[in-house]
């Protein structure tokens, strides 16, 4: 989880402490469709996985991201 939180903080430019909340796209200023792709690529590189299109579309909250990644690792 620590690894995911670092990715969220770095990619979405939020304080690390806030990654422990279940924030969604509406809660994070820098999280839009473009930064979402940067986030996806960062996650895939960090975990050595390849996410499906459906996964990418559903990963719109921190909890959803964690749940999706857990399916792959």
């Amino acid at each position, binding site marked *: 989880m620590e690894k995911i939180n670092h990715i969220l903080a770095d990619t979405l430019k939020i304080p690390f402490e806030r990654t422990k909340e279940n924030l969604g796209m509406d809660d994070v*200023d820098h999280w839009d469709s*473009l930064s979402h792709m940067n986030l996806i690529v960062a996650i895939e590189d960090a975990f050595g996985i390849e996410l499906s*299109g459906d996964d*990418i*579309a559903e990963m*719109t909250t921190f909890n959803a991201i964690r749940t999706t990644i857990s399916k792959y690792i």
Partner: protein
Amino acid sequence: MELRQAHIIITGAGSGFGKAMALYFSSKGASVFALDINGTSLSKLKKEDKTVHTYTCDVSNNGDVEEVVDTLFQNHSGINVLINNAGIMKNAPLVNVLNRPDGRHSMALWDEVIQVNQNGVFYMARSFINNMIKKRNKGVVINMSSIAATGNAGQTAYSASKAAVEAMTKVWAKELGVFGIRSVAIAPGFMNTMGTHEALEKTMLDKWVSKTPLNRTGAIEEVILAAQFAIENDFYNGEVLGLNGGLVL
């Protein structure tokens, strides 16, 4: 060309840059013909300066453009400047991965932006230059471009339309110099206008400001000064005048 001798058609003159330019150039002794799709905005402009001539015109409608421009040249002598200022900004990624099952860029949004920003400039210049050559008037076409013409993420249509505007500017400079007609573009960066604040969220605008070496947005007055330079300097031609505080996308 001195401003007092300028007879200027300005599109999108009901608000923003266009309105500010109309009022400024009129105050400096130029004759101003203000065009806008919004008649209410033109009425407000007319109340602020009764000497400004106002015409309702949708630049994305070629029939509308030809009728208004031909009427202007029939009824007024000496028209010698066109400022193609009317434009819209709509943003979307080429493919929005969050929109399932089809996240492809809207065709309607693409068509709308190209129709106003690119075709509108083409329609206006085509009609304006045709009349200028017939009357043997010398002058200048000033096209409003944008820093986004070099390509800005999330702005496929807007960036493409502004790149086209810059290309047309350079073509016309080469074609029309023989008639004594210049063609220049002004490419503002992030400016402190209502349009900027409507199109960009505050956090996004703050991000761009922080990347701008001068650490601020530009002022409308600074765009007016750029347009004034383009009108007054008779050797300035075929160039894009960047106005961005040093920001590079």
